[in-house]
């Protein structure tokens, strides 16, 4: 079997409305990877995922899942693939347990086995207590979990999640991160699209950025972040200032009278900054990143393209 969970070659998609969504994407995701596919709205992420999952018909190109060409044996490829769509896609009037059991049946899992698998999966995702509830009565977070339960019921080797934490509160989001890390550690390859760049930075080993239907970056998260030359920090200080202190190596601005914004180059020492501030009689009470590092990089790349 291929060492790649996913191989995409020259993938193109033009919709009936003549909108060109994909202009020829080439992408490989290694088995066991936790991969981020990022891009602004309308960049082509969902079209790519839709084609992989057979929800969208491609115009040209080739998709292989664990070496299986989807043009030659899509059913076999689909068996290895689980997809969590961006939008809720189950019957809201059915019970949670019925939705998951039925999904297992669509993958050819017998009723007896699917009941066992459903119990295990629902318990794993904290949905077992709600198994007899109609899906429409679930909160947004539980609906997201149900989507993941459906996608995992046939134990796919490749799981694709299209913005799985959109609209989910931070506590639940972090719970889901832990869960995804756990299944990735157990060997499931994960491809994630998200608008929360902190999420991608926390979870993913490799990253591709797509914009206007083209890949503008495809590298490791570490490599991408190492290319970030300047980072912005926010410092809370113990002194009230009317204007920012003048330290030539560290350009600064005042956010308010006790908060400083400072840009620090990759090769500059933060200790040196603290020394300089201390010499001016300013002590730093706390410090944080101005924005997510990946976010800065992402905006830079998308603006360039």
């Amino acid at each position: 079997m291929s060492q790649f969970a996913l191989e995409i070659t020259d993938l193109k998609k033009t919709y009936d409305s003549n909108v060109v969504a994909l202009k020829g994407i080439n992408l490989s995701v290694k088995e066991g990877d936790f991969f981020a596919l990022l891009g602004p709205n309308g960049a082509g992420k969902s079209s790519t995922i839709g084609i992989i999952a057979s929800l969208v018909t491609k115009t040209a190109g080739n998709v292989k899942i664990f070496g299986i060409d989807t043009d030659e044996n899509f059913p076999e490829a689909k068996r290895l693939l689980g997809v969590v769509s961006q939008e809720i896609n189950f019957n809201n009037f059915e019970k949670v347990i019925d939705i998951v059991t039925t999904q297992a049946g669509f993958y050819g899992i017998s009723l007896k086995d699917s009941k066992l698998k459903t119990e295990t999966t629902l318990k794993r995702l904290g949905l077992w207590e709600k198994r007899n509830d109609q899906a429409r009565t679930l909160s947004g977070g539980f609906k997201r979990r149900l989507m993941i339960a459906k996608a995992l019921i046939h134990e796919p080797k490749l799981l694709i999640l299209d913005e799985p934490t959109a609209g989910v509160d931070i506590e639940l989001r972090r719970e889901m991160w832990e869960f995804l890390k756990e299944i990735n550690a157990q060997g499931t390859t994960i491809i994630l699209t998200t608008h929360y760049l902190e999420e991608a930075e926390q979870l993913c080993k490799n990253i591709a950025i797509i914009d206007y239907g083209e890949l503008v970056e495809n590298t490791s998260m570490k490599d991408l972040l190492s290319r970030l030359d300047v980072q912005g920090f926010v410092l809370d200080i113990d002194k009230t200032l009317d204007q920012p202190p003048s330290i030539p190596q560290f350009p600064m601005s005042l956010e308010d009278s006790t908060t400083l914004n400072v840009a620090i180059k990759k090769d500059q020492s933060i200790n040196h900054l603290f020394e300089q501030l201390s010499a001016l009689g300013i002590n730093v009470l706390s410090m944080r990143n101005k924005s997510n590092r990946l976010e800065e990089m992402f905006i830079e790349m998308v603006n360039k393209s």
Partner: protein
Amino acid sequence: MKRGNEILVSLITLIRKEIKRYLRIWVQTLVPPAVTMSLYFIIFGSLIGPRIGTMDGLDYIQFMIPGLIMMSVITNSYANVVSSFYSVKFQKSIEELLVSPMPNWAILVGFIMGGVSRGVLIGCIVFGVSLFFYPSFTIVNPLLTISVLFLTAILFSLMGFINAIFADSFDDISIIPTFVLTPLIYLGGVFYSINILPDVWRNISMANPMLYVVNTFREGMLGVSDVSIPFALGMIIFFIIILTSACLLLLHRGVGTRQ
């Protein structure tokens, strides 16, 4: 063998889901035809029927029974598939099927079997109701009756499926049943024999496909018909083949299902 077994399991799952869907809302799906047909039997059969006398040599209520059963089978098998398949499109739960390894033909058969089962079940309910009003009813040709019952349910389930594929709104799934199916059924010999019509209207009626379905079923139940049975059966089977091919082609191309 393994693949075949998987397909069979997925097909049974879909059929079970479809049957559970209409049984869960039995007050909306099973009761109304029984109530409506009871009213037809009371008004046209018991009250007005005796004043009409006989039709094709049969008591009017007896003549009506096959027509009313067919009317119920046609409308319910069509309605089941068009509403169910459009709903899964509307709710996007069709993605559950599309991402799975189920082949297109199994998806089609699953929905059609759902429509057929409801159509046949309603047909049996209406026949049961008719026995209250005409207890001495006996079926002349059970094999032909059952064959036509299933073939008709399959044919109109396929039509409902195509309607749902092209439907973009809930209005689109009610237009054809209201403005096409219902008039054709009412003018298709449910309540009368075309032999009572003037020549011109009788000839026009011969172009109504419902006439062949209703009369073939009446031949099976009562042994009387206004049309050639081999021709009618041939046409029903011909259209089932054509519509099945069309459905599979539409699914393969992703029309109305994939972007």
